C-alpha cells in the first residue's frame, strides 16, 4: 500500500470510521469500471488523444496568438505548415489551403505575426496544433509582401509602363465615377465639378469601396462602364480611410480591370500619401477625389480663355492673310509696270543698234566716206579687177554723182607680181 492511499484510508477512517478493506475493494471496482484507472482498463492512444482534442478545443475559443514564424513550409498538398514561437515555447501551426485566401500572403520565417485560430490536437502525431485562419504581420509585412508580388506581376505584364499612359481628354462630356454612391468622395467630386461648372455629365457607377465584396464590386462596376461605352473618362476612387479600408484598390483583379478600361482613367484613392496599385495602373493618379475632379475638367474660365486664345489666333491669321494678299497685288502691279518699262528701253536700244548696223552696211555710207563703186552697163557691181576687160565701158558711182568711164588695161595683182 502506498503512503498516499494509507493516509487516505486513515483520514477516512478518522472522519467516517469506515471499513478499510471494503474501501480498497470499492477502489478496485472503480478501477475495473473506469477507463485508464488500471492496466486492465488502459485506454487506447487514439481514445486519449481524441479526448485531449475534445477538451482542448472545448477549453479554448478561437483566439489571436502572437509569435515568430519559423520552419514555414508550403506543402505539396496545398496546406501551409509552420511553427509559431517565442523565447520559451513553440507551437505547430497549419493553414488549410481553403483558408489561405483570407491571408494577404504566405508568411516568411522570422516574421512577427499575430495569428488567429483554433487550438487543437493532431491525433496522428499526438501534437498540439494551432489551425490558423487569419494572420497579420507586424508593420503590415504580409500586405506589403502581397502588394509587392502583385506589383511585380502587373509590371511583368507591362501594365505599369509609362508608355501605356493615355492622355486625359481636356473636355470630357461624360465622366463615369466608380465609387460608393453614398461616399464622401462622390460628394467632394460633385462639389468641385459644380464649382467649376463645366458642361459635364457625371455618371455615378456604384461599387462598395471597402470590405470583402469591394474588389468584386469594383471590377463589376468597371466592366459595366466598359460595356455601356458612354463615358469618355473614368475616375475610380474613394475618400481616405485606414490601410485596410483602401485595400480593395490594391487588389490585382481591380488593378487589371482598371488597366483594361477602354477610356482614359484617373485614380483617386484616399489621401495624398496613400498609393495604391490602381494609382500605378491608372493613366493619371490624383492625390484625392477632389484633385481628380480638378484634373478631369477645365473650369469655365479656363475653357473660355482657351476659346478666346483660339479666336485671337484665328483673327490674326486672317488679318495676315488679307495683308499679304493686298501687298501681293500691289507688288504684282509694281513689278508689271517695271517690266514694261524695261522692255521699252530694251527695244529702243535694240532699234538704234539695228539702225546703226543698217547704216554701216549701207553702200551710201561707204560712198560718203570717199569710196566709189564700179558697175557695168547692166548695173552689176564690178568688185574685182578680173571683172573688167580692157576697153570696156563702165560707170563709176561716187557720193555726189557718176562718171562714165572706159577701162584701158587690166592689171591683176598676181600677174603684176610675176
Amino acid at each position, binding site marked *: 500500500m502506498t503512503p498516499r492511499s494509507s493516509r487516505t484510508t486513515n483520514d477516512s477512517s478518522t472522519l467516517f470510521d469506515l471499513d478499510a478493506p471494503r474501501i480498497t475493494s470499492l477502489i478496485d471496482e472503480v478501477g475495473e469500471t473506469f477507463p485508464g484507472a488500471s492496466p486492465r482498463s488502459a485506454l487506447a492512444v487514439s481514445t486519449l488523444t481524441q479526448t485531449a482534442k475534445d477538451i482542448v478545443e472545448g477549453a479554448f475559443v478561437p483566439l489571436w496568438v502572437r509569435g515568430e514564424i519559423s520552419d514555414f513550409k508550403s506543402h505539396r498538398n496545398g496546406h501551409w505548415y509552420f511553427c509559431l514561437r517565442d523565447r520559451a515555447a513553440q507551437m505547430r501551426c497549419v493553414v488549410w489551403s481553403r483558408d489561405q485566401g483570407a491571408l494577404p500572403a504566405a508568411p516568411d520565417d522570422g516574421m512577427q505575426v499575430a495569428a488567429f485560430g483554433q487550438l487543437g490536437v493532431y491525433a496522428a502525431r499526438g501534437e498540439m496544433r494551432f489551425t490558423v485562419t487569419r494572420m497579420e504581420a507586424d508593420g503590415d509585412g504580409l500586405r506589403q509582401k502581397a502588394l509587392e508580388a502583385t506589383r511585380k506581376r502587373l509590371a511583368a505584364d507591362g501594365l505599369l509602363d509609362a508608355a501605356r499612359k493615355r492622355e486625359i481628354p481636356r473636355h470630357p462630356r461624360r465622366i463615369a465615377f466608380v465609387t460608393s454612391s453614398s461616399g464622401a468622395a462622390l460628394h467632394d467630386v460633385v462639389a468641385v465639378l459644380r464649382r467649376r461648372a463645366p458642361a459635364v455629365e457625371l455618371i*455615378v457607377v456604384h461599387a462598395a469601396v471597402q470590405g470583402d465584396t469591394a474588389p468584386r464590386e469594383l471590377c463589376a462596376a468597371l466592366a459595366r*462602364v466598359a460595356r455601356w461605352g458612354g463615358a469618355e473618362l473614368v475616375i475610380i476612387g474613394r475618400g481616405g480611410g485606414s490601410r485596410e479600408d483602401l485595400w480593395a484598390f490594391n487588389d490585382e483583379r481591380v488593378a487589371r480591370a482598371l488597366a483594361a478600361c477602354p477610356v482614359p482613367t484617373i485614380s483617386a484613392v484616399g489621401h495624398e500619401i496613400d498609393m495604391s496599385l490602381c494609382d500605378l495602373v491608372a493613366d493619371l493618379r490624383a492625390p484625392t477625389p477632389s484633385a481628380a475632379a480638378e484634373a478631369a475638367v477645365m473650369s469655365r474660365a479656363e475653357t473660355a480663355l482657351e476659346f478666346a486664345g483660339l479666336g485671337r489666333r*484665328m*483673327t490674326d491669321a486672317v488679318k495676315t492673310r488679307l495683308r499679304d494678299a493686298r501687298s501681293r497685288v500691289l507688288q504684282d502691279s509694281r513689278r508689271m509696270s517695271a517690266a514694261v518699262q524695261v522692255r521699252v528701253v530694251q527695244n529702243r536700244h535694240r532699234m538704234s543698234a539695228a539702225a546703226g548696223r543698217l547704216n554701216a552696211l549701207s553702200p551710201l555710207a561707204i560712198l560718203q566716206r570717199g569710196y566709189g563703186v564700179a558697175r557695168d552697163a547692166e548695173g552689176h557691181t564690178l568688185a574685182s579687177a578680173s571683172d573688167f576687160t580692157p576697153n570696156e565701158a563702165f560707170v563709176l558711182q561716187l557720193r555726189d554723182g557718176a562718171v562714165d568711164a572706159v577701162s584701158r588695161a587690166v592689171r591683176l595683182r598676181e600677174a603684176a607680181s610675176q
Partner: protein
Amino acid sequence: MTLEQRLLRLEAIVAELEGQHLDLETALARFEEGVACLREAAVALAAAELHVTKLSEAADGTFVLEDFDADDA
C-alpha cells in the same frame, strides 16, 4: 457639337489659316466658320451646368441613366 469637338474644329481652322496653304476665298470661309464656332461655344459655356446621373444595368443588358441627387451623397 460638344465643347471638345468645337475646340478641335477651331484648332484645325487656326492651323489651316496659319499654314497659309488655303486660297484666300477658302481662308475667309474658314474664318466665318470659326467665328460661328466661337459664338456657339460661348453660348454653351454660359449654359453649362453639372448633370449627375447613376448608371444601372437592367437584367436584359440595357443601360439606364437615372437622375441622381448628388446632394444626398
